[in-house]
């Protein structure tokens, strides 16, 4: 390894100094970090909002806030978590940082567009904050903005959907950038079956981002037009059909959950083989299943609408398609577990978090089948069961994958190693708190407690109290993890290039990477998960 300056010391474009070196940068690594700080801010904010909500629900009746505030708050929690955290988190941070490196190139194809996407992201976030203070206050519609309520409510829906529109644009341009980079910037010697799985998952995600996001954009434009012009496109009196809004909304928003989960699955596919010292089981199956999820996931949106009054035929078809999506997801879980089987497992915080992911995601996936089957869905539709299912997949899934990615790539991004002990403590607290938080919600839902309600019947109090208790545990765990990571930034930049024994290209360069990523031309392996060298090296070192 030759001595090189890291990208922290080398601005791109050259000659920029101080804050300008960040705000005007074209460097995908700097942009990834800029996304990271913004996204972490939003995540912590929305997490605390969620905690306040659960505190309110811990006791019957009014605890700390009134019903109007409660309605606005769960909307805000949803909007921030969806549009400012889960959708951008992994692609914008780790995708930006590592996709070009894993492809053996020096940047994304459109570096300036990348910077522009970051500004769109920041503007979208600012709009969301503005909508809190201007007009009728933050909307109380839930993040779904269902008509006719979203057209009639006094909350400032227009500004909030503008924010979501801008954020969608940012996400779409990032996707466009990734697809182009994938095809045009990939190292000449890297064939399709030599691409790391994280990059493959980002590629599948990027297509969904490009093809689904415009649908939500136009839907939000229509909501704004309805509010300003009262055209009546979704109003039955005026010849419109409110159900069509739901179709348009979910045509994006269901594929969007695959935008959220696919990159998370990609992260897990990277981490499991590295810490099992064993090649990933079923590389091609995972690649195909990523693409299959992207395609099939775009065709299942109406399973959110079984009770909305669709025809029985559509309910049947969408239920069937929903079950089909479960297959590629299960293929991945099967591959991860098989990778670990007879592997030489080395426990580490990223692996621990990945194992939590597999467990929690499996629960989320299986409860998803309960909701995907039309008969059982009618029983639990719009109850806390849905809330728990969704959080099992999005938080237990993507959230834990995000934490795992942070712990996995932190040494590479900052060149520092964090201490393991607090990381484990934080991760255990988070996982235990998670189970305490959401399992009661599954039960409450089956007992019939509706979602989004401010108050409930006496028999639901125990469950809600437990959930609130779990919520606090969960938040403490997350804060321990984050604080541990931040404290590590004070350490010297001494992390080795390959602290874990990884085989993908990012581990072949210095930590943190130099500005142009590869000082010497990268050596492309025949298969990205070939651990024979890593094993030989650790044998030689007598580990």
């Amino acid at each position: 390894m030759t001595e090189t300056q890291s990208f922290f010391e080398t601005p791109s474009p050259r000659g920029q100094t101080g804050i300008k070196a960040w705000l005007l940068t074209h460097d995908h690594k700097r942009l990834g970090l800029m996304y990271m700080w913004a996204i972490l801010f939003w995540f912590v904010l929305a997490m605390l909002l969620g905690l306040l909500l659960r505190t309110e629900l811990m006791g019957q009746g009014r605890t700390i806030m009134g019903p109007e505030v409660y309605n606005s708050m769960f909307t805000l929690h949803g909007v921030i978590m969806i549009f400012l955290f889960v959708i951008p988190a992994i692609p914008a941070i780790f995708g930006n940082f590592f996709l070009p490196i894993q492809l053996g190139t020096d940047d994304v194809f459109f570096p300036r567009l990348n910077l522009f996407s970051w500004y769109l992201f920041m503007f979208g976030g600012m709009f969301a904050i503005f909508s809190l203070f201007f007009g009728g206050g933050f909307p109380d519609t839930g993040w779904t903005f269902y008509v006719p309520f979203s057209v009639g409510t006094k909350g400032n829906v227009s500004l909030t959907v503008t924010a979501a529109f801008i954020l969608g644009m940012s996400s779409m341009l990032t996707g466009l950038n990734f697809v182009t980079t994938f095809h045009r910037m990939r190292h000449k010697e890297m064939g399709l079956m030599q691409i790391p799985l994280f990059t493959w998952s980002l590629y599948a995600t990027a297509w969904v981002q490009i093809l689904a996001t415009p649908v939500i954009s136009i839907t939000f434009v229509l909501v704004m037009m309805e509010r300003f012009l009262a055209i009546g496109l979704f109003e039955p009196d005026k010849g419109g059909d409110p159900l069509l809004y739901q179709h348009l909304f979910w045509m994006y928003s269901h594929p969007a959950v695959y935008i959220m989960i696919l990159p998370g699955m990609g992260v897990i596919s990277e981490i499991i083989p590295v810490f099992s010292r064993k090649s990933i089981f079923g590389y091609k199956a995972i690649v195909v299943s990523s693409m299959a999820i992207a395609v099939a996931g775009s065709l299942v949106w109406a399973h959110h609408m079984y009770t909305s009054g669709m025809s029985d035929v559509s309910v049947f078809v969408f239920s069937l398609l929903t079950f089909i999506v479960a297959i590629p997801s299960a293929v991945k879980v099967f591959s991860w577990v098989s990778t670990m089987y007879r592997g030489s497992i080395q426990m580490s915080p990223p692996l621990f978090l990945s194992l939590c992911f597999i467990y929690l995601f499996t629960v989320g996936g299986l409860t998803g089948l309960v909701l995907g089957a039309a008969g059982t869905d009618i029983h639990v539709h719009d109850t806390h069961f849905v809330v728990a299912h969704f959080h099992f997949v999005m938080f237990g899934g993507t959230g834990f994958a995000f934490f795992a990615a942070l712990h996995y790539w932190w040494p590479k991004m900052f060149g520092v190693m964090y201490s393991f002990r607090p990381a484990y403590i934080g991760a255990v607290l988070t996982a235990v708190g998670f189970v305490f938080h959401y399992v009661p919600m599954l039960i409450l839902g089956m007992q019939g407690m509706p979602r989004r309600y401010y108050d409930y019947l006496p028999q639901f109090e125990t469950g809600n109290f437990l959930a609130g208790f779990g919520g606090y545990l969960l938040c403490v765990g997350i804060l321990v993890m984050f604080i541990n990571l931040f404290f590590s930034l004070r350490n010297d930049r001494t992390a080795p290039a390959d602290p874990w024994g990884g085989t993908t290209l990012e581990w072949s360069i210095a930590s943190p990477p130099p500005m142009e990523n590869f000082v010497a031309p990268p050596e492309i392996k025949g298969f990205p998960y070939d651990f024979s060298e890593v094993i030989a090296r650790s044998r030689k070192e007598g580990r």
Partner: protein
Amino acid sequence: MTSKIDTTGIRIGMWLFLYSEIILFGGLFVLYAVYFHNHAQYFAEGGKELNRVIGALNTIVLLVSSFTVAASITAIQREKKGQAIGLLLFSLFCGVIFLVNKYFEWGAKIHHDIYPNSATLQDGAPGLNIFFGLYYVITGLHGLHVIIGMVLLSISLAMILRNRITAARFSMLENSGLYWHLVDLIWIFVFPLFYLVL
């Protein structure tokens, strides 16, 4: 970045963006399809109230301008700067004609009290309200795209004048041209759906 410019990559990026634009309008066409199914009779009735002559004229104007944009790209490739500038100016002129026509068309409709939430539409048949609601939304959004396309073409024009677009490097003009073709393409669907319905 490699010093050589990868024009294929730039084109791929542009095409991906155009796909997303098509899907943006696709959402509206989905609405059109469903409401046409629900209110076929009123859609036919509404279509008869639109001015087919202006609609047809606008179609021709856009088609011609699409041709001249394409021709200007060829002209740049052949290093005929003056010709390219002339063709682009003509395309922009066509864009202006389109918008002026649209202005008169919308003006006449609004004059007859047909616009979103107008008394006539509110009290009339729901099907007609939906037809004209969609008409304003789709042609309005299309009009916005015409304006964006004209801005892009104007930027390209300025870049040709400053020799920033040359026979060796004309991606900006090509992409603006592609965008302009998209505007044209969408109109080719909008025109029969509203003016020639049934």
